[in-house]
């Protein structure tokens, strides 16, 4: 598996963000912070409507800066983008009411209760329906399972409750797009499950969900699409199936005579062959596993087991983004 340069799966190179019908479309989006650090480098996101898009990347790869640009918190230094097909020349503010967001963890007033905090968010929304505020707030609390703790002070909430309140703020009104930045950061497995089922529920209602994470398992379980960031660049974008299929399948043979088996594989033109104590493996290429098996048996190799293995998502991820710190060291 060789990877050279960024992969742009869905937007043909050179096309600017036009009438794409995408929930999020960026074209050459870049951010260079004062001081010269290029946090986001020329990325072309294409988030299809109705998808659950996992925005992956190690910490510091530019995910949060991208999300901040999409929400108008940070001004891009290059490129353009569209949210929900809306022309942003008039600014982001007309479209943001259709976008629910949780950016870099929940942020609320510790001395206010959960309900008061949501009321504060709703009060800031100049397009909110005043007549239904109370019921909308209670409904949002109910959806994230915080109705019982609605009058507790935010300060007394557990981390999971805080994250859920952050999502509830995004649910104060019907949204076409939810942007969730690391919604399970710091949560225990129980809390992670809760958030995951919440995201599934939101997506089931037709809302496009754009969720950033550095946790692969999470993305694997809930996402239909993925984009992978590495040091500010989008190194992969596509469906989860496309991401998985990037990994070249290998043939793995368990045998008491690995050297002999390796010889057979080399003879078939497979390589490079990796030799271990009681097994041997090689990239499968276009060969049929059953044919390899037959050849092995014919050559008198005692085959104890034979399987085709795909690299795990984690292997792919590491392959795409680099090892980060030296994990072998």
């Amino acid at each position, binding site marked *: 598996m060789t990877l050279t340069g960024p992969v742009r799966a869905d937007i043909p190179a050179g096309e600017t963000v036009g009438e794409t019908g995408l929930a999020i479309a960026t074209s050459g989006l870049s951010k260079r912070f004062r001081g010269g650090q290029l946090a986001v480098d020329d990325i072309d996101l294409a988030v299809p*409507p*109705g998808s659950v898009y996992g925005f992956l990347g190690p910490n510091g790869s530019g995910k949060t800066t991208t999300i901040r640009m999409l929400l108008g918190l940070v001004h891009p230094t290059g490129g353009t983008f569209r949210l929900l097909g809306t022309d942003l020349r008039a600014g982001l503010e007309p479209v*943001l009411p*259709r976008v629910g967001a949780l950016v870099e963890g929940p942020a609320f007033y510790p001395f206010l209760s959960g309900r008061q905090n949501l*009321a504060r968010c709703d009060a800031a929304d*100049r397009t909110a329906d005043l007549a239904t505020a109370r019921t909308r707030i209670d409904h949002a609390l109910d959806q994230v399972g915080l109705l019982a703790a609605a009058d507790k002070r935010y300060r007394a909430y557990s981390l999971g409750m805080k994250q859920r309140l952050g999502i509830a703020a995004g*649910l104060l009104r019907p949204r076409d797009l939810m942007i969730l930045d690391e919604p399970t950061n710091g949560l225990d497995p129980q809390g992670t499950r809760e958030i995951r089922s919440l995201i599934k529920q939101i997506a089931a209602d037709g809302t496009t969900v754009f969720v950033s994470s550095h946790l692969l398992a999470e993305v694997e379980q809930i996402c239909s699409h993925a984009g992978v960031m590495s040091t500010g660049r989008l190194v992969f974008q596509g469906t989860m199936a496309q991401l998985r299929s990037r990994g070249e399948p290998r043939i793995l043979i368990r045998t008491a005579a690995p050297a002999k088996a390796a010889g057979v594989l080399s003879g078939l033109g497979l390589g490079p062959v990796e030799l271990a104590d009681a097994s041997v493996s090689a990239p499968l290429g276009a060969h049929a596993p059953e044919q390899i098996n037959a050849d092995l048996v014919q050559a008198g190799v005692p085959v104890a087991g034979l399987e085709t293995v795909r690299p795990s998502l984690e292997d792919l991820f590491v392959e795409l983004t680099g090892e980060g710190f030296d994990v072998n060291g």
Partner: protein
Amino acid sequence: MSTASAPAGAQTIVRQAPASPVRHWLRLFRSELRIVFLRPRNLALLGVLSVAPVFLGVVLRINTPPPGAGGPSGAGEFIGQVADNGVFLSLLAIFVLMTLVLPLSIAVVSGDSIAGEAGLGTLRTLLTVPAGRIRLLVTKYLMIVVFSVVACVLVAGLGLLMGAMLFPIGPVTLLSGDTVSLADGLGRLALIVGYVAIALAALGALGIALSTFTQHAIAVMAAVLVIVMISEILDAVSQVAVIHPYLPTHFWLSFDALLRIPVAWSQVLHGITSFGVYTVIFGAVAWIRMRRANVTC
């Protein structure tokens, strides 16, 4: 999410007609006031502001200075008058608190305004709602103005109340020696409260402008207080008299012009102009900064 069943694109149907922007703004403003006036720290500040007139009243009642005592100007002018007329306790309280506690409370509230939200992270929550950057800034500044008025009215009101309880109240002898009716005197007190509130609101503009540059509210508070102190020190150094009229604090205590006959209106107008210019300058700084800033906290 029961109502969000349609996919993107078909959603415009569920969006209600926009209600009056004024009603929405009032809702945000009320929310803002609730945040400021429910915050324990701000309540403590208002507590300190209310204790001061009570304390001054009690001390002066126990240890009454002889009529006409005290220095020729400044706090002394008022101390000497308190025993004769309780109205002066109100003026004395304003005068004394203007040296530190009133500017401090404005420094705290204005420092909190943007930097405090940024520090808590709630700024990003509000901006993604979206509250509107400039709409939020204007709301925050009006909240600071309201806080200035509340602080001044609280000090003056409690001063007047304690003055009425502890000392005689009647026709007011002004600093120029003329005596006016109690109603006239209270009218002048009201003008002074307004004048001081405007002075504090101008300081609030400085605070909110600094507040857009950092996420550390405490840094803004400290900076505002340092600026106040430097200004007051320079104002006391006669060698730099040429810059005195341009100092932000120079006209803070010029309200004594309202306690004379005839009123030195030019002095009052100079003060109001100075406060206005400072408000415009720092308002513009805050506006530009708020429009452009990258919110990364």
